[in-house]
């Protein structure tokens, strides 16, 4: 089906962005636009972090983080991945999650909260899945680091 997912898997974030970003949606709009542009991504990321804090399965992973910094990094990254006018200057995914030893269940729990945040902020089904398909290949660099 979407063969472009395959080459993304083992590559660092920067290459992944080149390989996968900005897959246009049905109307030829970028995913970034379908996410609601900068305000949409900001709402989404803020809601995701809030939900992650309230989910007892994963809240401990976020306890020691600086929320403002986390929100900024996630915002840049999603903006960048979705074809928006941003650069992601943060650490690589494996560096950023080093020492956290996130397991499969915790990863899925975060995806669930991210999805809830997308539903909650009114992002349509197709845009939600296009974003998830860009994030899914990062799983191997996030879990068990």
């Amino acid at each position, binding site marked *: *089906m979407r063969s472009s997912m395959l080459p993304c*898997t083992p590559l660092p974030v920067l290459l992944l962005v080149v390989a996968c970003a900005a897959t246009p949606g049905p109307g030829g709009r970028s995913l970034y636009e379908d996410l609601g542009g900068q305000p949409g991504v900001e709402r989404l990321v803020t809601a995701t972090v809030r939900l992650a804090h309230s989910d007892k*399965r994963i809240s401990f992973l976020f306890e020691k983080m600086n929320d403002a910094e986390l929100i900024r990094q996630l915002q840049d990254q999603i903006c960048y991945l979705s074809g928006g006018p941003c650069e992601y200057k943060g650490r690589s995914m494996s560096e950023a999650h080093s020492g956290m030893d996130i397991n*499969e*269940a915790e990863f899925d729990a975060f995806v669930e909260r991210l999805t809830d945040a997308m*539903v909650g902020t009114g992002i349509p089904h197709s845009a939600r*899945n296009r974003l998830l398909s860009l994030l*899914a290949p990062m*799983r*191997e660099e996030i879990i068990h680091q």
Partner: protein
Amino acid sequence: MGVVLFGIALPPVQGFDTGSRLLATGGITQIEGAAGGGLVPWAVLSGYGQKDEWGGDLFVTYARTDDYALGAAGVSVAFGNRVEFSLSTQLLDIDDLADDLGLPDDTLRQEIVGVKARLLGDLIYGVVPQFSAGLQYKHNADFDVPALTGARDDDDIDFYLNASRLWLSGIYGYPVLVNVGLRFSRANQLGLLGFGGDKDGSRDTLFEASAGILLRRDLLLGYEYRQKPDNLSFAAEDDWQDAFLAWFPNKYLSLTGAWIDLGSVAGKSGQDGFYFSVEGTY
């Protein structure tokens, strides 16, 4: 988060947690008790248990065609997203056929014990699709009628291998599920008419496949095809197909409606009808 469909609001279920895997990734329960679609097992394991978690489900299915009615119910449990065990029972109402032929029973019952193991890969993540292998031990509890039709045995084992993948971006952002499998079986009409027959006593290699699209996060529309053996000379056995719509209002419940086409069953042709299944997940 509550869910609204056709104006019906369902509150979220509080108090106990299912596993962590994502909504709908446990599929529903196929007619022989394994996690899958309605007719065909998928490589996914029942419930939502991720590694280090467990889960499973309870299901009840009712199917009705022109001349038959089939009820099925069962329970499954899966551990660590690795292995699934299931127990189920089927009861087929053959009233019309029994009247026509003066048969000794008007219902046929069988019990099925299933085991499925995830071999490698994942439904969603990584480059390798999820591969599973399974077996279904079936025991026909009303063997008088199957014996009359030429069936050889009242119990046997089906083996199967399958691969499933869900592409998240799918078609314009609508996730697409594809499942293909091979079954090694000599079961006549799932085993309800026994195993092996006067025409062919050995296992056949049978192809099974499913395809679906997630129209919404909680709504899977799909189609399935299941090849069948043809072991009994008294009546030809046709391949099966179905089109289904499964609704997952939350991770504790799914409701599935389907149109099924079973072809000719025990000499009665044109057996199409409906299928309805309710499943509770834990």
